[in-house]
C-alpha cells in the first residue's frame, strides 16, 4: 500500500491519541484556545508535550502543524519565501502562514533552538493583534479565528545562553509538564508498550533511579517515551536488561562510567 500524502493544513488527527492528563492542563488549554491566547508548554524531554498537542488538536478538531525548531530555522522558513519556477518568481507560504490562514494549530517544538531573529516573527501573532506581517510581500495576514499558536521548551535542558527572552515568554499562557506520577506512568507504559503491570512497574522504578542521577552526571533522567520504547522491546521478546540498555541507558548518556552505573541499576531490578 502506498503511503498517503496530505497537505499539512488538511491533516486532521482522526483517531483519539492516547493521553493521560496529569492535572487540569486540558481545561486550561481549551480555555486559552477559546480566548485566543497562545500557549507555552514547559517540561523535560519525552514527558508528553507533543502527545498532549496531538490530543488537543484531536479534541479541538483542528489540524496540527508541527515545526521542530533548530539552529538554522529562519523567519523565511516559517513565513514563506519566493521560489523561482519556470523563469518566474512565485511566493510559497511557510508552515506558520498556512496555519494562520487556515486556522490550524501551529506547534513550534523546542522554540529556544530557533535563531533569535526568528522568534520576533511570532510576537505580533502572540498578542491581541493576532497578525502575521509578511514583509517581503508587504502584506499583513490576520489570523483565522480558529488559529492557535503553541510553543514548547525545556527549561532544564537549555543552556543559559539560549534561555527564552522575557519579551517572548510573557505573551504565553504557560503549562508546566513533568513526569507523571508513578501510578500514571505505569498505566501509560502498560497501555503504550503492551507489557504486563509488573514489568511496567520495574521500568518506572528504573526511570526514577535514573532521574535520581540528574545533576550528578546525567543531564536528564529517562523519559516516559524511553520507558515506552524499552517496554515495546520487552514485549517483542528482548530481555529486559538488554532492552533497558539499548532503549534507555544508551539514549541518556555516552559517558562510559555513567553507562556502567545505569546498567548496574537495571540489572539490580530485573
Amino acid at each position: 500500500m502506498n503511503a498517503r500524502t496530505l497537505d499539512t493544513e488538511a491533516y486532521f488527527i482522526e483517531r483519539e491519541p492516547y493521553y493521560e492528563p496529569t492535572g487540569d492542563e486540558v481545561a486550561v488549554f481549551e480555555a486559552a484556545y477559546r480566548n485566543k491566547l497562545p500557549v507555552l508548554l514547559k517540561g523535560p524531554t519525552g514527558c508528553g508535550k507533543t502527545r498532549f498537542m496531538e490530543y488537543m488538536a484531536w479534541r479541538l478538531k483542528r489540524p496540527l502543524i508541527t515545526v521542530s525548531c533548530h539552529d538554522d530555522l529562519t523567519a523565511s522558513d516559517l513565513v514563506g519565501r519566493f521560489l523561482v519556477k519556470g523563469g518566474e518568481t512565485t511566493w510559497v507560504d511557510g508552515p506558520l502562514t498556512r496555519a494562520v490562514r487556515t486556522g490550524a494549530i501551529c506547534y513550534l517544538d523546542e522554540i529556544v533552538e530557533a535563531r533569535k531573529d526568528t522568534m520576533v516573527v511570532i510576537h505580533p501573532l502572540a498578542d491581541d493583534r493576532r497578525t502575521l506581517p509578511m514583509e517581503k510581500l508587504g502584506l499583513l495576514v490576520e489570523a483565522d479565528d480558529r488559529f492557535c499558536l503553541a510553543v514548547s521548551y525545556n527549561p532544564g535542558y537549555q543552556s543559559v545562553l539560549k534561555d527564552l527572552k522575557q519579551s517572548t515568554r510573557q505573551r504565553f499562557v504557560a503549562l508546566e509538564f513533568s513526569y507523571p506520577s508513578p501510578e500514571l506512568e505505569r498505566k501509560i507504559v502498560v497501555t503504550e508498550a503492551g507489557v504486563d503491570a509488573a514489568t511496567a512497574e520495574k521500568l518506572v522504578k528504573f526511570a526514577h533511579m535514573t532521574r535520581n542521577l540528574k545533576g550528578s552526571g546525567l543531564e536528564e533522567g529517562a523519559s516516559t517515551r524511553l520507558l515506552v520504547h524499552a517496554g515495546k522491546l520487552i514485549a517483542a521478546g528482548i530481555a529486559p536488561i538488554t532492552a533497558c540498555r539499548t532503549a534507555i541507558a544508551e539514549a541518556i548518556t555516552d559517558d562510559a562510567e555513567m553507562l556502567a552505573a545505569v546498567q548496574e541499576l537495571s540489572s539490580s531490578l530485573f
Partner: protein
Amino acid sequence: MSVQASLDIADILPSLEKWLDVEFTFYRVEELAADIARRPRGEQNFLLDWIRRIATTNIEIAYQFARRAPALLGRMDWRMIEAWALHAMDSYDKSGLRAALLVIEGVDGFAAQRHARVAGALFEDIDGILFNFVRGLSGRRLNLAQGDVAYTDSETLFLPTVIAELETLEDNFRLAKATVTVLWAQTRFGTFHFDLQNALSAHPRREQALRVFTALETLRLEACIRRELPGLYRDMQYLKALLNEDRLSPTWQIYANTLADPHASVEDSLRLLPLAMEEPDPPRFCYQGEIRPEAVAQCMAARIQREKALLRVKLAQLAEEHGHPLPAKDAPTQIPVPHFQLKQEEDAASGAVEMELMLDGVPLPAPEDVKALLTSIQLDLGHIPDEYLTPAGPGEYDPSLYQEQTPDPNDVWQGAYHEIGATLYDEWDFGRQHYRKNWCVMREKDVTPVYDDFARETLARYSGVVKHLRRSFEAMRDENKLYKRQPYGDEVDIDALVEALADARDGREMSDRLFTRMHRAERNIAVMFMVDMSGSTRGWINDAERETLLLLCEALETLGDRYGIYGFSGQTRKRCELYRIKEIDEPYGELVKARISGIRPQDYTRMGFAIRHLTRLLSRVEARTKLLITLSDGKPDDYFDVYRGQYGIEDTRQALIEAKRAGIHSFCITIDQEARDYLPHMYGAAHYAIIDDVRKLPLKVADIYRRLTT
C-alpha cells in the same frame, strides 16, 4: 626481525654509576651490573629502564629496587613489578623515604597480594560506577569513600581499598555492589531509627550483641532488597552459594522468616536479639559490612540539627517567594505565621512515598533541594515532626549551623600536610614517566582589589588604542554575511536571475543557484586568561600585564565573549595558588578593575596545576570554542623544587595535552626571548607568540585574540 644482542657489564656499568650517583653514594654496582648482564636483552631493558626512572625520584629507592628486582623476574610478571615500583614511589611522595623502603623490602607481601591485585575489585576502579549506582537508588544522596572495612555513618558508605574474597574480578565486583547495597539499605530501611549506641551500651556482651544484631538486620534488609531490587537479590544468593553461606540453622531460618515480613522493622531485630544471643555463632554474610553505632550517632546528631535548621530556613524562603512574608521580629503578633503542612501518600505498588507540601492549605511545588531535605529527615526520624514545618523567624538561626564552612585559603599552613581546604592535582614526572598523585596542593585566592587611579589613567593614556580595539572587536561580533548564488535562501538573487534568464534565452541550461541567504555566525566562545604572577614579573612587566588585561576587558566587553582571568603563582608543590581576578560569568565592573590594579608579583612559576585547574573550570562551561591563553614572562620554574628545567617543561606539556583532550585550545603569549627553545615543545609549533617589546603587549594580545577567534 633481528633480536638485539644482550648488553655486557661494560655497557651497563657506566649507566648504573651515573644514575645511582656512585661517585657520592659509594654504592657497589658491579654485582648488580653482572647480574643484569646475564639476562636476555628484553629483561635488561626492562630493569634498566625502571632503575633509571626510579632514580629520578630517589637514588636510594632505585638502588634497593635494583638489588631485588632481577631475582623477582622469574616469579612475578612484569606488570606486578611495575606496580610494585610505582607503589614505592607513590609511598615516597606521600610519606617519605622510610615508607618507600618498607614497600621495597615488603616485596613478598606485595607478591602475596597478587591475587588481590589481579582479581580484586579495587576501590579506585569501581568507585565511579558504584557512586552513581548508589545515587540512583532512592533515599538520601550518599557519598562513597575508602575505609578500613565496609560500614556506613549514614551519610557516607565506606568500602575497603580492595575486595578480593572471590576468584574472579567479576564476582568481586558483584560483592562490592551487594555490599554497598546492604549499606544503603541500612540507611533506607531504618536500621538507624533506633538509638543503637544506647541500646547496646549497657549490654554485658556488647561485641557479641552487635554481631548478632548485624546478622539479624542483614536478614531483614535482604528481604527488603528482594522486594525492591530482585535482580540484585539474585546476585546476593549467588554470592552466598559461592561462599557456602547459604545454609541457615533451623532457628536462624525462623528468624529469617520473621524478618522477611514486609512490615518487619529494626524493632523486630532488636526484639529477636536476646533469643538469638542464646544461639551458637550467628551467621555471617560476605556483604554485610559492619555496623558502627558510634559513627552513626555522631553523624546523625550533627545532621539532624543541621537539617532542621536548614529546612526551616528554606521554608521561610519558600513562604516569602509565594507571597507569605514572615512577620518582622518586633511586629504585633496578629499577623499569622505561614502554616506549612505535609501530605504524604504511599504508592501502593512501589512503596515510594510521595510528599506534597501545602502552604496555608494550598499545594506548593517544592524545589528539589527541599524534597531531598524532607526525604533525609524522614529517613532519620521516620516522620517529619510538626516543629520542623515552622518557618524560621528573622534572625532565629545561625548560618554556621546549616551552611558549609569554606576554610580561608590564607590559613595555608594549618593542618597536617597543609592540605585542608585545598584541591589536589597530579603532576607529571617525566623521569618516572608517571604521574605523582595528588602532588600539587592548589588553592583559589582572591586578589586584593586596589581602588586607585590605575584604570582611569590607563584608559586615558590608551584612549586611542581602546577606540581602535573596540572598533576592530565590534567588527568580529555576530556578523551577518550575505551568501549569494545559493541553491536555496531567503531572497531571490536578482543578478543571478538575470544571468540565468539570459542563459535560458540562449538555450543554455538555467542555473538553480538563484538565491541569497543571510548567514549569521554566532560566536560561542569561552576564554580563560592565565596570567603569570611570578616574582620575575616585578616592575614594568607587571605594569604591562595589568594594562593589557584592562584593555582586553574593554575590548572583550564589546565583543560579548565570555572570559575569565586568573593569575597563577606558587612556592613549592604545597603552595600552588590561583588568584581569581575575574570568574568566567562575573560581570566586568569596578571590582574587576580594582582587582586588575591589585595584581602584584608573588612567588614562582609552576604552571601545570594552573592549566589543570583552569581546564577543569573551562570544561564546565558550555561553549563551542574554548580557549586557554597564557600570558607569561618565562619558562616554568619553582623554588628549591624539582620543578625547573626539563621537569617543569614536561609537566606543563602534559597538562596542555590533558587540556587538549578536554577540547580546549591553548595558546601562549610570552616576552621571553629564549622561549623558542621550549615553547614549541610545550604548546606546539603554531600555538605561541613571542613579543619582543613589552610595551606592545596590550595591542599584540588583542590582535592575537582577534586572530585566534575568527
